[in-house]
């Protein structure tokens, strides 16, 4: 198939940036979206032009590196996938495809389609962990009984790969689905209880400091999340926050 691509090009964080139009031809419908961009980049290199910079790593939907806002949706028009799992069969010959970086004040553009997502790392560092004595006599985690339901829910929350699609797709650039998932994965397990109050207060404080917006419960994040993280996690975070705040 032959496609017209309108891609955001920005040389550096300070550059103003603009949409640039490219043509690609003979794209196979079996290619992944990133492979299509590889074809474009080969074309650009051959023409002595700067290739389009975009994030990618595992290319099998697990590392959370790939991003891209494609035709107005995070990770493109398919559901439950990352951009690297998006196939060109989702598009038609002659289509024009808009490709933009995640847009949020907390995710500044580094170059072209690559944004700085370390704000999510800093939120995680503010409390997304449990403190364990690793001196050698640590209790075996399997020795603590956990209900199947709680274990399943914690695991579902823990599948968040931190790609930032929730922030990118939210009309308010809110990171609450990410933070809700990271809080939930500990809040549901006995090991997470000891630091529960500090965790939620510190992670929410850091989230606010990073400049993310407020959630207005549109539910867009849940739809666009490649791992299907549920809004239930945001409600759990709200409960945890209220509980911790009232406790003082």
């Amino acid at each position: 198939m032959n496609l017209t691509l309108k891609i955001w090009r920005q040389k550096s964080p300070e550059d103003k940036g603009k949409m640039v139009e490219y043509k690609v031809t003979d794209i196979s419908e079996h290619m992944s979206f990133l492979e299509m961009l590889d074809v474009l980049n080969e074309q650009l290199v051959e023409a002595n032009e700067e290739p389009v910079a975009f994030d990618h790593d595992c290319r099998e939907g697990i590392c959370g590196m790939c991003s891209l806002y494609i035709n107005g949706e995070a990770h493109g028009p398919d559901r439950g996938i990352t951009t690297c799992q998006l196939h060109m069969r989702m598009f038609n010959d002659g289509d024009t495809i808009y490709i933009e970086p995640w847009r949020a004040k907390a995710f500044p553009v580094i170059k072209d389609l690559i944004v700085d997502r370390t704000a999510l790392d800093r939120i995680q560092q503010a409390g997304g962990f449990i403190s364990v004595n690793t001196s050698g006599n640590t209790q075996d985690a399997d020795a603590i009984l956990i209900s199947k339901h709680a274990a399943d829910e914690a695991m579902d929350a823990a599948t968040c790969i931190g790609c930032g699609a929730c922030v990118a797709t939210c009309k308010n650039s809110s990171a609450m689905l990410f933070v809700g998932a990271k809080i939930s994965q500990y809040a549901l397990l006995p090991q997470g209880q000891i630091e529960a109050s500090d965790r939620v207060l510190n992670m929410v404080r850091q989230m606010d400091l990073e400049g993310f917006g407020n959630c207005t419960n549109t539910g867009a994040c849940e739809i666009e999340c490649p791992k299907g993280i549920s809004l239930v996690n945001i409600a759990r975070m709200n409960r945890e926050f209220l509980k911790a705040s009232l406790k003082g």
Partner: protein
Amino acid sequence: MGILSSSIARKVAMALSAFFLMFFLLIHVSVNLVSVFSEDAFNTASHFMGTNPLIQYAMQPILLFGVIFHFVLGFVLELKNRNARVVKYYKNNGAANSTWMSRNMIFSGLVILAFIVLHFIDFWFPEVNYKYIAHLPEDPSRYYGELVHKFENPIRVGAYVVAFIFLALHLLHGFQSAFQSMGCNNKYTKYVKSFGKWYALLIPALFIFIALFHYFSH
């Protein structure tokens, strides 16, 4: 903003004020509905609401505060949220993952605000003037006549109908959203959502019915 410095605290405050306003709407529509059935009963109910000290000096200021609080915080949140994305997308397909109502709460809210201004000019300011500025003698039979008089004007009736359609749109998202903000998302959520849809459609529909009833029957 002190206690409201956290994003989640602001969400909770929005939800609590929304619950209060939704409860008020229920009371308001119930009293208005009486006017459809009985002039005397409506006068009695309105006289009670208009002269009861608890309602006048405690509930009314709380309500006024609730309305102003919900609007002001709503605008503050909207500004903060807009500021969280400085560079907008060239192409954004919001309809692919969310409802129009959920994305346009500020727009439906602004229409409701405009309506409240009109409503205050129509009813509340004259009422305050009657009782507390002009100090006119209380006439327990005046309320029905005042109501009917207001709904003689087709432009006013049309404005009310449009405003209540936007109230329905606001509530269609707002009702269930308030529960989510309070952390209530569990096995009962599907019932909350379906009750919320009924509430969001029924309450504005009753307000519209009452306005049209008086317009066409007098």
